[in-house]
């Protein structure tokens, strides 16, 4: 079993290389509509004309409602699309997600579309970020990285996040006075 430092480092190295391999492989994948992998913003931004007449997915922030124009920045380029046949109320600033046929003139003929308020996006990223901080805090408090053995170990006396935060607030208060 992998119980030595050398064993761990080797295994970690191999696993990391394999993981990088997957990241590169996924980056090279082309759309596969038969598997449900429709072209998306990335493909449309690169070469919209290639997908004329095909089913595509797209999303973007609503810039104007009449005509319905959505904008997204993809890989450094701006993708601006006109969306037709959307039968629901849309507001400027919302995010529109659409599935439909790509037409000439950077038009998407919508089959299905729905909107997401920008506040919803703030919530999604915000809660994800806070959750990440919380888990990181618990990890740091409960586990310790042993750099010599390259091993993550459980702390025998776990440190708790809330008392640490309280101590910091006290220190700041004392400093202010």
């Amino acid at each position, binding site marked *: *079993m*992998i*119980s030595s430092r050398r064993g*761990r480092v080797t*295994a*970690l190295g191999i*696993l*990391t290389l*394999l*993981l990088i391999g*997957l*990241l*590169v*492989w*996924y*980056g*090279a*994948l082309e759309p*596969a509509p038969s*598997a*449900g*992998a*429709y072209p998306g913003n990335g493909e449309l931004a690169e070469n919209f004309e290639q997908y004329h007449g095909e*089913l595509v*997915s797209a*999303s973007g922030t609503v810039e104007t409602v009449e005509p319905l124009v959505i904008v997204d920045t993809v*890989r*450094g380029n701006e993708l601006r699309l006109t969306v037709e046949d959307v039968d629901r109320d849309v507001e400027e600033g919302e995010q529109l*997600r*659409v*599935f439909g046929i790509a037409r000439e003139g950077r038009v998407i003929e919508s089959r*299905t*579309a*729905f909107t*997401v*308020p920008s506040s*919803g*996006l703030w*919530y*999604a*990223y915000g*809660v*994800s970020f806070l*959750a*990440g901080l*919380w*888990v990181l805090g*618990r*990890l740091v408090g*409960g*586990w310790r990285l042993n750099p010599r053995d*390259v*091993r*993550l*170990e*459980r*702390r025998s006396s*776990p440190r708790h996040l809330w008392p640490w935060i309280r101590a910091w607030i006290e220190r700041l208060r004392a400093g202010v006075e």
Partner: protein
Amino acid sequence: MNPQYITVGMAGAMVPDLAKVDLLFDDRTVEQFLGIPWDWFALHTAGGVLLSVLIGTTIVGSTERRRVFGLLSLGAATHLLADATLQTASGRSYSVLWPLVRYQPPTPGWFLSTDPTPTLIGFLLAAAAYLATRNRRD
């Protein structure tokens, strides 16, 4: 089962969203820097998650391994499964089982990631579990 292991389960649940590092170093920037194709989203598929979980399992001591592997896997699996029920415009979710298959299963479209309701439900379930096990803890 103690708080340190619960943390491992929580960390497992975060693993698929390691793909969000795309917000810091987006795919195109990395591609230009390395000169090869790149997509962080592989971290949100079964293959990427399995390798990430194995990395976490390897770095802990051998006495911890079985528990850590189980907890990381459980956490990550719940995230992958929940995300596979997100509503999409195409009606299809993502390549959950990649690289085994490219297939993006149809999604039941139960909720949106921008919807706070699942978080509330999760919080209530956690609170209920906490209260129910209060006696066992002392």
